[in-house]
């Protein structure tokens, strides 16, 4: 036991001291904040300056401007006074009279000079064709396109209803859109957060598990390979059991992972407690930050998936390190080992949108995919506890089995150098190790 701790301490120290550990610890929270904030910081929060070329009969252009600039105007007259963001953009609208042929050259020049983001033509036959034109250098901005489409639709509908005999005030009231507040039902009843938030959460947790296993798992292989090629292994196993050496190594690397994650969790908790302030500062949906909160029970289960998943792959990687002879050889095999972990990322959409269907269920049961697949499913839906426990039990059994087999390969592998063993030799090692 003492030797395991000594080896554990060495591995932990060697890892924590590296530059990549410091960088990873620091950069990941920065990266995560950036992922959450970037969409609103770039593109989104910008002021959009548009010109409406009005050929349409009144009051369509007025209704359009109101719809584009105000959430829910009580009256078209007060609209212009309170500009607002729609889909993250804030619009400044200038209305010029048509026909478009007369003003086009001027508008294009202003767009070239980057004074304008684009212009919208409301044609005279808009009531019949229900068609507007939008010319911009920013057609790639799907938010702006959707805003204009929605605003034009609202304006036309309001116009139609008004012509059917309703006054403008009641029309806007009638057209008030419905806001859908998504929430997930779980053990405790209702949980705050939108569907989008669960998706973020699932994605983040799954990515973390994937990245950490890939990163640190390969660290285990490298470390085993170093001891094997340096013959340090010979000295070590003359003082301790090979299996203890392997255990100490895996736990040491695991401790480094846990330390890094702990630092991240602290950062995330800080972020979440400040979510209201952050949301205000950066104009993002506070739910996106709140999404990172999880119930203690869920957190515990997610932790179990991470720990077992890490141990499973670390054991495989330790066995791999003992069986190969060079880093290059190890890398090509690592890719192969990592493949099952990657599969759930390919099925991200199915796992989060249809978490209770056979594909998701299967990926959740297979021990090699479960560590990534289950967090995704658990974030997206309420998975029956029995199913979670079965999946965890399968994972645990596989981990123990893998560690046992890897230990056998390890015992012989770290002391044999030269040629890489053939498959038959590996099986022989497993039987005799």
């Amino acid at each position, binding site marked *: 036991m003492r030797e395991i701790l*000594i080896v554990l301490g*060495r591995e932990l120290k*060697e890892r924590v001291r590296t530059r990549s550990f410091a960088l990873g610890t620091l950069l990941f929270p920065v990266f995560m904040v950036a992922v959450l904030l970037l969409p609103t910081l770039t593109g989104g929060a910008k002021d959009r300056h548009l010109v409406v070329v009005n050929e349409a009969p009144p009051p369509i252009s007025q209704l359009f401007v109101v719809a584009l600039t105000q959430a829910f105007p009580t009256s078209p007259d007060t609209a212009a006074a309170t500009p607002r963001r729609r889909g993250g953009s804030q619009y400044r609208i200038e209305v010029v009279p048509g026909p478009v042929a007369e003003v086009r050259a001027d508008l294009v020049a202003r767009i070239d000079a980057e004074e304008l983001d684009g212009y919208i033509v409301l044609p005279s036959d808009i009531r019949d064709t229900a068609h507007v034109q939008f010319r911009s250098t920013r057609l790639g901005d799907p938010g702006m396109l959707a805003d204009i489409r929605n605003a034009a639709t609202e304006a036309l509908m309001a116009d139609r209803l008004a012509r059917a005999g309703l006054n403008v005030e009641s029309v806007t009231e009638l057209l008030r859109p419905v806001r859908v507040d998504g929430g997930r039902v779980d053990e405790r009843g209702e949980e705050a957060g939108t569907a989008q938030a669960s998706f973020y959460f699932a994605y983040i947790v799954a990515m973390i598990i994937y990245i950490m296993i890939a990163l640190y798992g390969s660290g285990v292989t490298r470390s085993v390979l170093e001891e094997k090629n340096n013959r*340090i292994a010979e*000295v070590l196993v*003359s003082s301790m059991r090979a299996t203890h050496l392997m255990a100490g190594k895996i736990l040491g690397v695991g401790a480094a992972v846990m330390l890094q994650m702990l630092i991240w969790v602290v950062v995330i908790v800080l972020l979440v407690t400040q979510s209201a302030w952050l949301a205000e500062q950066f104009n993002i949906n506070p739910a996106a930050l709140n999404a990172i909160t999880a119930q203690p029970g869920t957190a515990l289960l997610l932790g179990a998936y991470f720990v077992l998943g890490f141990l499973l792959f670390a054991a495989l990687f330790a066995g791999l390190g003992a069986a190969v002879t060079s880093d290059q050889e190890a890398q090509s095999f690592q890719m192969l080992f990592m493949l099952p972990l990657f599969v759930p990322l390919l099925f991200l959409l199915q796992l989060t949108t249809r978490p209770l269907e056979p594909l998701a269920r299967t990926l959740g049961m297979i021990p090699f995919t479960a560590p990534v697949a289950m967090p995704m499913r658990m974030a997206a839906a309420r998975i029956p506890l029995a199913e979670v426990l079965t999946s965890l039990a399968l994972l645990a059994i596989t981990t123990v089995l893998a560690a046992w087999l890897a230990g056998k390969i390890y015992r012989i592998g770290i002391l044999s150098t030269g040629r890489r063993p053939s498959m038959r030799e590996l099986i022989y090692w497993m039987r005799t190790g």
Partner: protein
Amino acid sequence: MNAALLLERVSKRYAAHHAVRDLSLEVPTGSIYGILGPNGAGKSTTLRMVMNIIARDSGRIEVLGQPPEGREVLRSVGYLPEERGLYRRMGVMDVLVFFGRLKGMDARDARRTGAEWLERMGLGDWRTARVDTLSKGMQQKVQFITTVMHNPSLLILDEPQSGLDPVNQEVLRETILSTRDGGGTVVLSTHNMDQAETLCDSVCIIAGGAKVLDGAVRDVKQAYRGDRYRLVLDAFSTDTGARNEVDRLLRRYSTSVAVESGNGGWLFELTDFSQRDLLAQVLELPVELECFERVEPSLHEIFIERVGAAARTARREVSDA
């Protein structure tokens, strides 16, 4: 417990060949013991079995009176493997503390002893340096410190001289001698016969995995000394008459004169004659006798003679099979 290390009919077979066969040896406590043999003789395999790194197929091993499988006893052993290596990215002192603790020292003790050894080896300034910034020779010294710092009662060194410059070979030699003088036992493998001859109290020569001979160096040399004599005469070259007489004597012993040595002497290997007869005739010569001595073979010669024979036998066995 008289023997620090005891092997009884130990064998190890790999799929294709017999690495060690029926090897028995006994290393007296407080001695320096050399395991000699050509490349591939099974020296390293033997030492690895002693260190429980590989399992023997049969036979009995006792390390300091206990079977090595117990591992506890291996804590009192310092082992330097043939191929050297350390954690390259660790600091020198961290490496020493790590290995010291694995051998049962506590961290502070390991730090103190490690620092003393680094000073002794001239590495005092390199305490905090990373191992991969050290030269190869320095790394060897650091590894040697990891082997001896826990003050083992048995030191097992596999080819300890390889890669060391003459200065460090001397440091190694001193350490080996002081370990022995401190009551410890040193087992080393080498194919450097001159080193073994000057350093070892006892040796075991193995070839083809089997023991060729073993025993105290003095006894071995005595057993193989044969009837070889060196004769040196004074100023024989000045007197022609005297030289003719010497020539006549030499002709009589022509089948025995093996080597004419450079400093004016002759080497006689007596097979059909006795040393008494030879000496009597020499004394009758009209020249002064300067030196007449029995020549002991060097370990090197014994090794070449015996291992050469063993190799020839092995080749014959292979071709017969």
